[in-house]
């Protein structure tokens, strides 16, 4: 896994949950995940996916509005996956001149969710309300490489508002 991609993903995960009121710390033991948001992406020369897997308490604590039921808790994790990859797109891929298309997120719930697919990299995070695992996979076509950040037109950042 590309080190810069992993670092961006880890930093972005921390920022995202902090933005929603949950302080997370990289590392720590994980508990069995009960809900996950899965989102894929594709660009010229690459494809991949990111999974946020966590427990219901983390979803409940980070959700901006209290959930009325389990469906709403599960939906929120999908939106977290969407916002996580959105940030990674802006701060990692576009910063290197690489455009990616993001899929709509898919959510799953269960007991003891695990990612068993071959080359996914796992990053654990702990928080006062439960643990979080980010699984990610970034596949590059043969001969394709991702370089350092380049001079490129800036993206609108989180919270920005522009009128036309």
């Amino acid at each position: 896994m590309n080190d810069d991609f992993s670092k961006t993903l880890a930093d972005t995960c921390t920022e995202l949950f902090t933005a929603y009121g949950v302080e997370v710390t990289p590392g720590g033991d994980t508990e069995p995940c009960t809900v996950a948001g899965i989102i894929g992406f594709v660009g010229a020369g690459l494809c991949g996916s990111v999974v946020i897997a966590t427990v219901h308490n983390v979803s409940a604590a980070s959700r901006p509005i209290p959930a009325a039921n389990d469906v709403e808790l599960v939906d929120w994790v999908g939106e977290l996956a969407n916002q996580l990859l959105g940030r990674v797109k802006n701060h990692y891929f576009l910063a290197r001149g690489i455009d990616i298309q993001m899929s709509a997120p898919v959510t799953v719930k269960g007991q003891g969710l695990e990612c068993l697919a071959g080359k996914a990299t796992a990053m654990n995070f702990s928080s006062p309300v439960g643990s979080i695992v980010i699984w990610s996979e970034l596949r590059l076509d043969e001969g394709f490489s991702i370089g350092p950040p380049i001079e490129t037109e800036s993206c609108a950042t989180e919270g920005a508002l522009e009128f036309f």
Partner: protein
Amino acid sequence: MAKKVLVVDDSSTVRQQVGLVLTQAGFQVVEAVDGLDGVNKIGSTPDLSLVICDVNMPQMNGIELVEKVMQDGKNAGLPILMLTTEGQASLIERAKKAGAKGWMVKPFKPDLLLAAANKISRSA
């Protein structure tokens, strides 16, 4: 009469979050779950003052929604504010050219969203 706003997002959480900000400020809120639903609701909901629309959605994305609505003469004057994780300049430009009135990147600040809604919504 309260202004009516259509919120288009495939996330129920975002629809609720935006809806709460707007209803607490006196707006009426209608929801759509994706771009296609959004187009249909625009066609069938009279007196809309504003649409707040995500970009990445199943069935039809938000920019395609703007393009479709603006092509339809009946609703061509309807203000549409994009609310999305996307920050890419080329996407913003495409939305602008299609006729959207603004672009906001998630997560949003409620007071900023409300200020935007008040600024660009048209009279009821």
